[in-house]
């Protein structure tokens, strides 16, 4: 089974990306995880003071994934295009992007200022299919 994930790490989502999440969370082939950080235990991780503070500043983790099967490749391409459109249009600042057409791509964008990130958008296209 192949997965393609778009993952948002955020305090609040910008409207249109949020709309995309809401619109598609019940659509077939989509997988959704909304994880409040209170559920994620950090007890077993040895953080330094700064790391702990950073970890605790994360409010919510929203993950939207697309389950890729043989018969929904066309739809997947359309959704990929939609996502790219949203990510390119909104006032997200790009941190980095990398990858290629065979192994997939990663795009990192954020909303905020130099001192604090309000939202971090991690987009992975087909990148982790071999990991899972």
């Amino acid at each position: 089974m192949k997965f393609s994930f778009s993952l948002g790490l955020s305090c609040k989502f910008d409207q249109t990306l949020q709309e995309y999440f809401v619109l598609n969370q019940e659509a077939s082939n989509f997988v959704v995880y909304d994880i409040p950080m209170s559920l994620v235990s950090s007890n077993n991780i040895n953080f330094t003071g700064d790391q702990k503070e950073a970890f605790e500043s994360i409010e919510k983790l929203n993950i939207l994934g697309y389950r890729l099967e043989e018969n929904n490749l066309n739809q997947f391409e359309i959704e990929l295009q939609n996502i790219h459109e949203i990510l390119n249009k909104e006032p997200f600042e790009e941190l980095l992007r990398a990858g290629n057409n065979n192994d997939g791509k990663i795009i990192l964008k954020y909303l905020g200022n130099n001192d604090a990130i309000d939202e971090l958008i991690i987009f992975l296209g087909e990148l982790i299919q071999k990991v899972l």
Partner: protein
Amino acid sequence: MKKIQISLILVMITTMSFGQNLFTDFENMDGVTSIVVNNKMFSMLSSIEINSSDADEQQFWDMIKNITSLKVLTTGDVGIANDMTKRVKQYLNKSNLDELMRIKDGDQMVSMYIREGKDEFHVTELLMFVNGLKEITSDQNISINGEKRDIETVILFLNGDIDLRQISTLSEKMDVPGVKHFKKAGQ
């Protein structure tokens, strides 16, 4: 006078955007792996407090802050590599970059071009073009996602306010084939 200024600006815009085109034309092509790291990423990285007593390390982070963008294109496909060579040549003809160095060793070619900045040690634009790497990389077992990769050509664009004397420090931190040649440039 005004006309000259305007045309100068126009020339600058066209040369700048040409480099951009060169990159975007290849970026999404099958068989091409690309990396783009923007200034925000660099400034965030360098704003992370690094308590380093190492002067080299400190210089490295100071230099990082001044990079506005880093773009890398690599391919293992000989056809695409030839296209890249052609496009880079076109770009160099139009953009008035100065050749900094050129090294040829067997099939391998490394060339570096710069646009000089505020003084002789600073550059605002740096283009490194490495060709003919297949010979080396085929022995190295470079694998990504468990598949063996060959790398034939690497194009690296750096924009910002870059101190050439610091480039060698950067080259030690980056794991891009051919970057070791940067060392010679800093000397």
